[in-house]
């Protein structure tokens, strides 16, 4: 009888223990930005970023599993040229129109992981699906830096780092200006999240 009770207790506690190991972090919007760079006429690289990103990521170190879900407001794109001056439109304005991000029709793009690879205890690569302009395609993101610690002031548990990846914008139907304006988009994401 005592053995049965013990076994029952073990079975009851085990799922809770496993559940406790999966930690979820909410993306900190003021310290998390998807940055990108694209070739300009084969001369230089233009850098830009999206100012508004939200979402969460989770990690289960014991099971070496994780997940990521991000939503990016496409209208928040900026490349540092937001003042049109004497021109009809600034570059950032043009980026928001139908030739590029088409924000009126597609106000958001999203990324959802399908698998997270680990190197030791830390996540090293995220395999996932990027949805941009209504097209969903696989895009993998390499995690170049991953740190978890206590916030020095608020004492809240936080994780974050830097990640990078690339994709061809024409795969998502954004063909304007290719090849003069580069087709390959290199992503550099800095992210931080607080444990929920």
């Amino acid at each position, binding site marked *: 009888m005592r053995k049965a009770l013990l076994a029952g207790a073990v079975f009851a506690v085990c799922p809770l223990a496993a559940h406790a190991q999966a930690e979820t972090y909410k993306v900190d919007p003021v310290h998390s930005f998807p940055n990108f760079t694209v070739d300009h006429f084969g001369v230089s690289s233009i850098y830009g970023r999206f100012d508004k990103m939200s979402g969460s990521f989770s990690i289960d170190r014991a099971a070496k599993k994780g997940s990521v879900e991000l939503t990016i407001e496409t209208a928040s794109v900026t490349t540092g040229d937001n003042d*049109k001056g004497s021109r*009809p*439109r600034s570059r950032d*304005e*043009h980026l928001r*129109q*139908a*030739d590029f991000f*088409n924000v*009126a*029709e597609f*106000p958001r793009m999203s990324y959802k992981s399908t698998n997270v690879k680990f190197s030791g205890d830390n996540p090293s690569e995220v395999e996932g699906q990027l949805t941009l*302009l*209504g*097209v969903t395609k696989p895009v993998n993101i390499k995690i170049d830096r991953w740190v978890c610690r206590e916030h020095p002031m608020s004492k809240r548990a936080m994780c974050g780092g830097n990640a990078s990846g690339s994709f061809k914008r024409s795969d998502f*139907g954004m*063909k*304007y200006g290719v*090849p003069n304006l580069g087709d390959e988009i290199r992503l550099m994401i800095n992210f931080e999240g607080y444990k929920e």
Partner: protein
Amino acid sequence: MQELLTNPVIQSSAAPFLVGLVVACILFPIRLAGLAAGAGFLAAVWMIGAFGLAPLTATRKLVVLAAAAPLLGVLADLAFKPTRVTAPVLGVLFGAGAIWVFWSVLSQKPAAEGALLGAGIAALVLWTVAFTVSLQDRAVRAGAAGLFLGLGTGAGAVLGASALLGQYGLALGAACGAFLLLAMILGKRVVAGATFTLTAAVAATLIAAGALVLAKLPWISLAALALVPLAVRLPLPEKLPAWIQAIVASLYALVPAAGACALAWQSSRTA
């Protein structure tokens, strides 16, 4: 050669003009020279690389509806012998189609704003289609209207910050220009029909509406463009050769088209 085909100027002017001219020359004996507008426009879409149905975005729906216009136009010309009612009926049909084209954008706006925008676009399409299709028996006037609906829309879209829609509009203008050239040379032997007028009106208004909804072309520019099919109704020197009539009709059409561009330019300076 590849460099030539990817050149935006070739894509939106020389290529659609040549395609339109060839199609008009081949088909005018069977009263289908009007297919020049659709053929030139679709050739440009193909060269720009924007053919495709997935995902069915507003811009792609625009091309689908613009491609349906010449087919319906041929049907109207050959099978039904257009009557007075044809123009407004086609206007209502394509006005409803315009709602479908921009539904993905309209449905994301607050209900009142979306409804107002949708009703405005449908009314613009109805108006332009009705007044342009009723020019079906007057090839020179119809050609001039198509030329400047296309050019005005294209230039306006560029100023409204959409190069793609700008290219579409300019390509339509070039293709309509090819039809007008043939009408200038051959006069009344060239028939516009619903094939030409419906294509020119539907494609131009959808491109203009696209530049309004997806870019920043102001409403007032669209209103000015809607005057193009009215302007070409002004008196022409009917006894003079067709090429002189074409020039006069083009000058009439140029005024509202240029006005639409000027308003788009002014809006871009102040917005």
